[in-house]
């Protein structure tokens, strides 16, 4: 469904991504692990259309998306949950959800989707009139995930959803990822918390300094001695 081929991204002279290729099939959960500054966020931003690759191609659901604007990429079915959630702090919880369904296809279904979202995230229903800026870190992350669902995506990309959250909340976030998986969404998850992420993954990639250094199934990752010591802390 998603086919990324030899993507190179630069910030000025600095090369953030060096010939990255990866694939995601329908309904698959794929994770990208790697240290801070490896280019994981850049990868998601590029797939979301917020950064343009200098070389390489991105194909999603039968169409090239690498030259699309971000708002067109969302319409085409890829939605992003950025690092920290990035909810709109001065909008109410309800408005944050509504703005998630801004693209034309999603807009007409917003009213039927809201009750489902509130069923999935009851805490958001309780706080729907509150300003998003007043939510706790975990609630913001949930709102960000819920907002991305409102866009009616086929692929959801999550950037470090567990970052800065208390261990109990981290477990909850991963349960939601599990739920999304059961609902049939394709998921691209970027995580430093490799242990937990590998448990939900069908396939995994390791990025270091903008380069792809290893890929395989969760078992392959578990068996690799380098990854074991460097990323899994075993």
């Amino acid at each position, binding site marked *: 469904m998603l086919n990324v081929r030899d993507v190179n991204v630069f910030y000025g002279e600095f090369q953030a991504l060096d010939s990255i290729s990866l694939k995601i099939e329908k309904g698959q959960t794929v994770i990208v692990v790697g240290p801070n500054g490896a280019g994981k966020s850049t990868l998601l931003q590029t797939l979301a259309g*917020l950064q343009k690759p200098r070389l390489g191609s991105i194909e999603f659901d039968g169409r090239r998306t690498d030259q699309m604007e971000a*708002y067109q990429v969302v319409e085409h079915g890829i939605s992003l949950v950025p690092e920290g959630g990035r909810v709109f702090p001065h*909008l109410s919880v309800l408005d944050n959800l509504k703005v998630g369904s801004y693209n034309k296809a999603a807009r007409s279904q917003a009213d039927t989707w809201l009750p489902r979202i509130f069923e999935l995230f009851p805490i958001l229903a309780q706080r729907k009139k509150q300003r998003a800026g007043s939510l706790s870190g975990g609630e913001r992350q949930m709102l960000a995930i819920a907002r991305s669902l409102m*866009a009616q995506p086929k692929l959801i990309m999550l950037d470090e959803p567990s970052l800065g959250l208390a261990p109990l909340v981290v477990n909850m976030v991963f349960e939601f990822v599990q739920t999304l998986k059961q609902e049939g969404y394709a998921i691209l998850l970027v995580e430093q918390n490799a242990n937990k992420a590998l448990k939900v993954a069908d396939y995994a990639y390791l990025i270091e300094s903008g380069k792809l250094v290893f890929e395989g199934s969760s078992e392959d990752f578990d068996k690799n001695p380098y990854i074991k010591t460097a990323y899994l802390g075993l």
Partner: protein
Amino acid sequence: MFDQIVMALLNGILLGGVLALLAFGLNLIFGVVKIIHMAYGQFVMLGFYFIYYFYSSWSVPLIPAMAMGIVAMALIGVLTQLLIINPLLNAPRLNQLLALASLIIVVENLAQVIWGADYRGIPLSMPIIQFGDIYVRSSFLLAFGGAILTLLLLYLFLNRTYLGLGIRAVAQDLDMAKAVGINPKVIYILTLATGGALTGLVAAFFVPIYTVHPHFGASFTLMAFVIVVFGGMGNLLGGFISAFIIGIVTSVTAVLSSAEAANILALALFIGMMMVRPQGLLGTES
């Protein structure tokens, strides 16, 4: 004396309403496009001339002439976005500021070339309304009522429609707004069209009150700017409140002392605010 102060207070509130509308467009443009529209008052002047032109040269009746003026200014707003702001979106702040400041010179001189330096106006006699010992000009009352109604409609537009939601989202976090599916170019054009239409509307409210000349806009640019910065740049509620503060302070001081003293006090108040709270009344520190 007491009646005079009550009257000044009332006039200050009426003036505050119109100033709030004037400042709203400038504030909205800054909040959304992150651009300071230096020629905002000059656009009011241009709107006034358009209405005058449609009315006196094309013999369009006054109300339709005002509507045409508003539409013309909305179009000028769109052109400003397309021709001046869009090419400079990623330019350094100073370049953006200079480009829009030079628009002041262009618009003022254009007005002078087309309509000359004479004072122009549409003679209208609007009644003065009396409540006991208090006298209020109906033209002021009308402008105030129209301004408040417009602000209410704008509030509903921003809070109840998808486009309004898009505008607020772009103002808060541009990249995230793109990521949820908003095309910022459309939002920018809409914002400048709204801002432009508002200059036309303010001009329409000014028609029964003032006469226009090529430098008519300068004081309104300054006034709008002071109000917006005083209230906290980009904060619409802050701008609304500060418009009434500035309106009341200038009106009351003008009665107690003189119009010059009123302007000095208003600007002193502004400078004081900048020293105590540089982010303005309701602005957030950045």
